[in-house]
């Protein structure tokens, strides 16, 4: 549990990424209410100020908004969510390509291999964190 956070990156940014992924994947539904900072901090086992900072960052990106009297919500802007989902997908593909390059595969070889794996259905485990 202690090591779910990467050592070399600010924790709040890792929280931002984690939330973004959950919003993109629909695990956190558009328009749904978020728990309080304190509860989120306890669930993620982080400092409340760190959680606050992550939420502020998400708010700046428009992914989360605050209704002063009611609480904090995930945006209802589907367009924005889709955009982010796409850019997250791009990032993952970019990572994949970079790793494959390091292993010595050309773009074409990587693509072929990907196709084969998909055909064989070897990717059942969904790779989410």
């Amino acid at each position, binding site marked *: 549990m202690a090591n779910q956070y990467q*050592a*070399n990156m600010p924790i709040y940014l890792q929280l931002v990424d984690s939330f973004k992924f959950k919003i993109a994947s629909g695990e956190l539904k558009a328009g749904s209410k978020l728990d309080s900072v304190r509860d989120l901090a306890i669930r993620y086992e982080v*400092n409340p100020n760190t959680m606050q900072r992550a939420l502020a960052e998400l708010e700046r990106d428009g992914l989360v908004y605050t209704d002063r009297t009611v609480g904090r919500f995930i945006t209802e802007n589907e367009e924005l969510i889709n955009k982010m989902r796409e850019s997250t997908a791009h990032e993952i593909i970019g990572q994949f390509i970079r790793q494959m390059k390091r292993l010595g595969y050309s773009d074409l070889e990587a693509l072929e291999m990907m196709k084969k794996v998909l055909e064989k259905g070897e990717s059942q485990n969904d790779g989410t964190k």
Partner: protein
Amino acid sequence: MMEQNNIQQFGSGDDEGKAATSASEVLPSGTGETGELVRITGLTKKYGKKTALSNVNLTLEPGRIVGLLGPNGSGKTTLMKILAGTIKDFQGSVTVNGKEIGPETKAIISYLPDTTYHSPWMRPSDMIALFRDFYADFDEQKCRGMLRRLGLDEKQKISTMSKGMMEKFQLCMVMSRNARLYILDEPIGGVDPAARDFILDTILTNYSEDATIFMSTHLISDVERIFDTVIFLKEGEIVLQGDIDNIREKEGKSIDELFREVFKC
């Protein structure tokens, strides 16, 4: 090597005359008009010829969880004891909530020492009675609830508890006070990883926006995620102080890794 602008080194030969360049003035510690809970200026403590703390300057805001980190013998416990009021002969000025250390500050500080402080015959129920008499801010219900959740028996003699149980028990007592400043000296040293998680959880659950938790530990990688501020103490001097994520961002490494670098033997 460390970047000079982040690590504030004090010349070892300096004396009181150079008190103007304090860590809190030079580094972005974020003190503001929001009010400060702790203010330490020019604090020096000597044990005979041995200097335990040397010209320490420090301010802590409310609503923070602050990690006090340093190798053995760096002065962590001494600093905590001074704040808690158990060491009284020191040079410099120390105030908590604007008051000099004394009965008024003791009333708002909840201190977990690095040693046990109960008598051998005592049971948790005795300690509860003691805390009820001693501390106006003691929340008995909260305490009993925590003890129950930990599976601790109020009637079991404390001296028959394992080290881990005792640590959990003492932390329950200390966290059951609605204090402004919690001083926790190595609260997780002797407990297993599962209990460690429970203790960190307890600390986070009891966090309040006008209280600050000031905690020392050696197990940095286990707990650094619950800090927002860290202080590195080296041979009685503050060599680094700042927001944990800013440090991680700047250094590209965890506090644990940075610690190993700064205090490399």
